[in-house]
């Protein structure tokens, strides 16, 4: 009873892939790990990559596995130990993993994997309820400076990108980041309810998550974290408002430790080809992800800098003991 439908699904997948796949498909057969449960951002990134890699003919087949647990700590441990030297495996990673590994005192770190490329980023936003007296980033800055404990920020899990951003905001406006009153919620859903219901002062999340509420006028966006204003958007950046706060929730892909330079090049080339494909561009548009491709050593460099920055912030708010 159970086996039949799954087989049906498998057959359907094979059919779709065969139809979309030109005859000149290469022999690349990849295994891609999403270090999270199905449904989250990393899982969606992995499944989108699977779709684009196969549709654009870069790989003949891509198999996605989910290894959920502790912000990616479980997945990366399995990846580093189990896939060592395997040039046909990759793992999705991202901003949240940097913080999670530091907080969980993980014995495995992102320094051990072979960086391939940064793929996407999501711009972050701070919102307030429509009836809030806070109109812009300077109002919020003033409130934070007046009494930081009374300004409550709602966002995602402790130590995640929203939490780091709250601390960076407080630091950027000259308040003591250690004293921020950050209330972690599980998932954007619950925090959105707390913001709409006026339970907290402000909410932090990825822009796409709150876009519908902002457009319908239920939430007011007081600033986005991009370097420059997003084309066609009337939401000002924090930089425009004189607050130095630039951060993005980036997602990337990495390879196991111990692979040869040739294997690394094959994987990097495959990812680069995928990023340039129409299939990938189409997916980015659907999901509202920004293309943030950064390959090779530039990405390795970025990863190092971002790790240092996040660890510093987490130490300053007391989540990581130095």
């Amino acid at each position, binding site marked *: 009873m*159970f086996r039949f439908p799954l087989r049906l699904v498998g057959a359907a997948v094979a059919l779709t892939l065969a139809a979309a796949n030109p005859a000149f498909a290469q022999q690349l057969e990849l295994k891609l790990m999403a270090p999270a449960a*199905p449904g989250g951002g990393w899982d969606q990134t992995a499944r989108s990559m699977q779709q684009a890699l196969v549709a654009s003919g870069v790989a003949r087949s891509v198999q996605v596995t989910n290894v959920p*647990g502790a912000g990616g700590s*479980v997945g990366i441990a399995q990846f580093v130990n189990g896939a060592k030297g395997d040039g046909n495996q990759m793992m999705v990673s991202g901003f949240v993993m940097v913080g999670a590994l530091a907080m969980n005192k993980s014995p495995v770190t992102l320094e051990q994997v072979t960086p391939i490329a940064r793929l996407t980023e999501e711009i972050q936003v701070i919102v307030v309820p429509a009836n809030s007296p806070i109109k812009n980033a300077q109002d919020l800055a003033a409130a934070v400076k007046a009494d930081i404990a009374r300004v409550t920020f709602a966002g995602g899990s402790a130590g995640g990108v929203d939490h780091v951003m709250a601390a960076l905001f407080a630091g950027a406006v000259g308040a003591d980041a250690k004293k921020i009153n950050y209330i972690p919620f599980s998932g954007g859903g619950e925090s959105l*309810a707390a913001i709409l*219901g006026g339970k907290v002062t402000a909410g932090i999340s990825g822009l796409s998550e709150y876009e519908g509420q902002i457009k*319908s006028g239920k939430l007011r966006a007081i600033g986005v974290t991009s370097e420059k204003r997003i084309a066609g958007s009337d939401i000002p950046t924090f930089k425009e408002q004189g607050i130095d706060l630039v951060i993005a929730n980036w997602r990337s892909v990495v390879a196991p430790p111990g692979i040869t330079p040739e294997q690394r090049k094959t994987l990097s080339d495959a990812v680069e080809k995928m990023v340039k494909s129409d299939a990938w561009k189409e997916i980015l548009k659907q999901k509202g992800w920004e293309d943030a491709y950064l390959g090779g050593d530039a990405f390795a460099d970025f990863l190092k800098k971002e790790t240092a920055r996040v660890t510093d912030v987490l130490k300053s708010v007391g989540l990581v003991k130095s």
Partner: protein
Amino acid sequence: MMDTFAALAHGMAVAIQPMNLLYALIGVFLGTAVGVLPGIGPALTVALLLPVTYKLDPGGSLIMFAGIYYGGMYGGSTTAILINTPGESASMATALEGNKMAKAGRGGPALATSAIGSFVAGTLATIGLAFLAPWLVDFAVRFGPEDYFALMCVAFVTVSATFGDSPVRGLTSLFIGLTLGLVGIDKLTGQARLAFGVPELLDGVEVTTLAVGLFAVGEALYVASRRHHTEEKLEPVRGSLWMTKEDWKRSWKPWLRGTMFGFPIGALPAGGAEIPTFLSYSTEKRLTKHPEEFGKGAIEGVAGPEAANNASAAGTLVPLLTLGLPTSATAAMMLAGFQQYGLNPGPLLFAERPDLVWGLIASLFIANCMLLVLNLPLVGLWVRLLAIPQPWLYAGILVFATMGTIAAKPSVVELSMLAGFGVLGFLMRRFDFPIAPVVVGLILGPIAESQLRRALAISLGDPMTLVQSPISATLLAVALIALLAPFVLKGLGRFKANED
């Protein structure tokens, strides 16, 4: 109001197109299948199907996802009743009475009341979704952390209904569950608790692993250990296979009450499906005219929770469609499904794509009817399962439970936990401790803790925040009354007795 009717009629026209009917059928079939298997839930199924449905039209694939969602809720109860293995945590309350009924040869009526109850509740709740969604969502959004905490207090009071005869043993079980609930990363500070350096434990104990271990594995071990003492003879059918007139009479009110619990709580962003099933179970236990049957297979204890379970599934769609708020894993996958087509659920969706929204709601009605048609004839087939010789049946259950756990989380730690909980379940049965409170503690404990701490963080540590919100104050009063009423009534009774 008339607009709603017109829109719904239009939606019906969309939903009964042959292709969409086919999608709904595939959806409910897949949903029922994955609901039966513990571990593989509707969320995983939708995730696997997302890339496949990419080429389909948005209406059709969303209709299929909704079918999977409703179907999963039906399927989970079948294994709960027949082999005491809840397919998902929301079916746990069903297992309490349902499995006892099945062992007494009343599996047929138990499956029937759960299928019909699910149908009634699903239909009523879908009507609620169509007409009350905008109003209900305003209420749901006003629910703050302190209100959730108060709701958890009400739920905790009702847990005692699952205790059985001895409150001390019941509380012991509950505290085991609460302790298990502490395992993992603390949500508010990000620090690990009781994880002993095992990374797999950082996310806490999975409810399904605990439930399957305690219920299914524990039961199998217990039966195996008793085999040489007394050969327990299972009669697949005793009396009628279908519901008798008496069964109908005892079922319809619990169906309606279960719906009243399930739909609004399901619509709360952090409500979930488990809490209404337990509220319903304890309500039925208090209101029943046959209290002596509870714990031995009372049909009310199946009818109510099953209705609550399905009504909450419809409730979850309220915040999803009106706010774009996914409040369960499956809803989050459906949201991803919407986004795949460039649709953003939220306040604008009803205005921008009415055909899609109302087509989806209409197809929920159709999915419900299909599920009833699919499930009722199967009842006769399902109860035959119990005719399988016990050693075979329980060996099958063990394989089933292990496979489901591995499918959900492929890790040695998870499997060891399953085995450990199985032994715990065996010992608890052997020494007569109730097992349901353990699972309840694991579900309620972490929610109550994090909501209370959130409320206090927002109020800067002022406990008065718990009684300043009218919702929270009311709920706390309800909890207090429910807690004290039995003692007061007993006291009054004694007082009267003295007077006589």
